[in-house]
């Protein structure tokens, strides 16, 4: 069927007699003419200095994206995007379906790797000045790819429809609801109603599986097209300034003098690194396994500590720490403003020095951003945002606080448990951390202050005057005044220099 003349179109040209496969390839290529169109593109020359291990993170991100597509398609064969069945289908995937857990682990770690590699890629591009003239559009498209990847991460977290997903969605909807005038409409559009209900998951499934990936594919194609057409950034040298007048000429001269074909030479290190990323990814998935699903997404199960996935922790912590009066303004305005500043970067810093070695401002910016994000992420992981709802019944009173107590004090210790004081106040290092630990509360508050605090509350602490009988307050305070170290006396009233009238009597 195939004529031997067509063999000349096989990439690189065949040496020797072509096998059966080679002939098939030649037959196809004779009609598709791929080697004419695509091979020259792949083999276009790039600066030899760019064939560096610093230039591999973009392709590694692309590899993760492709893997996400493959594992995502596999998962969608089993996953049921309905609020009633999603959790059960995740359980099935994780515990029953052979290799289902591994697919979930690959998809989860793939998303982690993708976000991480993309972040490194952005930082590298920033440090190497690759966003400068004439690669402004590549940078702008990259910024939107970053945004879309985060959108994939958020919607993907919703696909893992468990307690974290439920409350994460609740936080997202609460933020959307803050938009002036249109808040309710946005929430309605996002959730398919005013609350997280049957349609919500369908909407996010559509976003996660159709809309965002389609946009990603289109923009990835555009990004790659720009990389091919504008050319890979050369290794930046201090003193080699970018000017709109001379840069293109200099670049073409550099490629002509000291270039090499992208395929097969330039792509070499990309492939090596991609292989390493793949091994690391499979290892993480095999050793660390998938994430969740944790508890059922049932809002009546309150004993949960919902946290977003890693990349949203800084945002989560920042929003939690904002003072109430600036919440709406910063939540709605700060992310778009920061994003626009990032997008516009090549337009206010499009020429001049590229090398990180002579751009201290770049270092200050990157270090500041990452220290801030790291600190916020740490706070997001460590901070006890919510009470420990089962502390009252699950964390025993420390034994040393039971021994040697009077009957009334023991009743007080019982009230600390049964009235759920422990949910917010720790004893002996166990319990909630919304309020201060009570281990040495008697050294801070006199008996009178304790009575007032319990009855009237203060700041975040509710007033319990209506919820406790007089005798119960008496017992509770009788117990609390015993909570001080043996070598440290209880607090004394500044006016009377005594422990309080009734305390003295007891």
């Amino acid at each position, binding site marked *: 069927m195939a004529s031997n003349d067509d063999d000349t179109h*096989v*990439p*690189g040209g065949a040496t020797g007699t072509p096998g059966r496969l080679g002939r098939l390839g030649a037959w196809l290529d004779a009609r598709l003419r791929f080697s004419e169109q695509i091979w020259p593109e792949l*083999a276009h020359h790039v600066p*030899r200095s760019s064939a560096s291990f610093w230039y591999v993170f973009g392709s590694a991100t692309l590899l993760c994206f492709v893997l996400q597509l493959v594992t995502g398609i596999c998962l969608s064969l089993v996953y049921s995007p309905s609020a009633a069945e999603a959790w059960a289908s995740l*359980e099935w995937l*994780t*515990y029953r379906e052979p*290799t289902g*857990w*591994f697919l979930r682990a690959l998809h989860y770690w793939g998303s982690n790797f993708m976000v991480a590699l993309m972040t490194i890629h952005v930082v590298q591009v920033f440090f190497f000045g690759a966003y400068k003239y004439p690669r402004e559009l590549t940078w702008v498209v990259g910024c939107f790819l970053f945004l879309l990847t985060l959108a994939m991460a958020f919607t993907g977290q919703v696909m893992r429809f*468990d307690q974290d997903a439920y409350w994460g969605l609740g936080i997202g909807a609460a933020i959307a609801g803050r938009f002036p005038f249109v808040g309710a409409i946005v929430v309605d559009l996002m959730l398919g109603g005013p609350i997280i209900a049957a349609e919500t998951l369908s909407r996010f499934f559509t976003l996660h599986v159709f809309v965002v990936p389609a946009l990603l594919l289109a923009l990835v194609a555009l990004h790659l097209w720009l990389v091919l057409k504008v050319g890979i950034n050369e*290794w930046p040298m201090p003193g080699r300034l970018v000017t709109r007048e001379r840069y293109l000429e200099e670049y073409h001269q550099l490629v002509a*003098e*000291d270039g090499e*074909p992208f395929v*097969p*030479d330039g*792509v*070499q290190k990309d*492939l090596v690194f*991609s*292989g390493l990323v793949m091994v690391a990814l*499979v290892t993480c998935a*095999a*050793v*660390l*396994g*998938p994430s969740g*699903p*944790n*508890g059922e997404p*049932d809002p009546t*199960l309150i004993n949960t500590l919902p946290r977003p996935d890693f990349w949203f922790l800084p945002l989560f912590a920042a929003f939690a720490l904002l003072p109430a009066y600036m919440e709406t303004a910063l939540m709605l305005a700060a992310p778009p403003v920061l994003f626009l500043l990032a997008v516009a970067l090549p337009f206010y810093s499009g020429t001049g020095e590229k090398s990180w070695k002579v751009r201290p401002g770049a270092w200050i910016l990157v270090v500041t951003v990452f220290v801030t994000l790291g600190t916020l992420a740490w706070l997001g992981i460590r901070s006890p945002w919510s009470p420990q709802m089962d502390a*009252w*019944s*699950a*964390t*025993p009173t420390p034994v040393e606080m*039971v021994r*040697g*107590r*009077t*009957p*009334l*004090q023991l*009743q007080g210790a*019982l009230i600390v*448990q049964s009235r759920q004081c422990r949910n917010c106040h720790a004893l002996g290092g166990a319990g909630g951390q919304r309020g201060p630990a009570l281990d040495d509360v008697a050294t801070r508050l006199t008996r009178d202050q304790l*009575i007032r605090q319990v009855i009237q509350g203060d700041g975040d602490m509710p007033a319990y005057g209506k919820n406790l*009988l007089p*005798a*119960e307050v*008496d*017992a509770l305070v009788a117990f609390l005044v015993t909570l001080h170290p043996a070598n440290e006396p209880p607090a004394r009233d500044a006016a*009377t220099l005594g422990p*309080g*009238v*009734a305390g003295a*009597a007891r």
Partner: protein
Amino acid sequence: MKTELLRARSGRQRRRAATRGASGTPAGQRARQWIAGIAGQVVAFAALALAACTGLPGQPDPAARPIRPADVKDVNVLYAGNCAGCHGAEGKLGAARPLADGLYWHVVRDADVRDVVTRGIEGTEMPAFAMSEGGALTDTQIDLLVTGLRARWQGTPLANRGLPAWSVGSAPAGDLGATQRGAAVFAARCALCHGATGEGGLAPGSLVDPSYLALVSDQALRSAVIFGRTDLGMPDYRGGRGETPLTNGEISDVVAWLGSHRVASPRWPATPQRANPAREEKP
């Protein structure tokens, strides 16, 4: 050629450039090597994926999966999550009565325990745990707890002897005879530790404190006399070495005497009324 060699950043690139210059290897061969490399990666990836069928460390353990609180069936988990807060991690030395107490499980019947857990005990801090009463446990879980905790803590059967009745219903209020007999029993059997008036002695604190008595029911007092708090050093109704066990009647009488110290409505704990001389001197 010379400038190219000088510009190449690494030795490897230099070698590669030199090789290319010398032999001019056809790009096609290397392209095939790359294709083979990619294929190798895909095959290795697939092999690893298939290896996932067998137990890898990342495979989630079905036993560790999250289950709804209402589906928990392990008695020890139920105890740790719902009871340990007050009754102690090991069933003793908690703020509330110890349950790791063989005598308790011999005196109290399953139906009684089930009722206490289901509805709580009015007049004490024991809350209702049944879902039907606003708690968090299903009836099945409560049954599991009752039988499971009995199995855990009942211990060896006691010799066949007259155990006191756990509950006798509430005694008629103001039974002066019982109160007087109870005072005598208290003086004989309790005063050594709790003081002649019940306001404390070797054992710290008052038993007749109006606030304390407002927070414990007669049944709770009766349980305290019958079972003591052996984890904190208070003996049960059988008393110390060489003492005769309290009879059912004596237990009721002591409870009546303690109960007679109750006041109608205990006041809020006192806060100091600071004397303000200037104000007091005003007419």
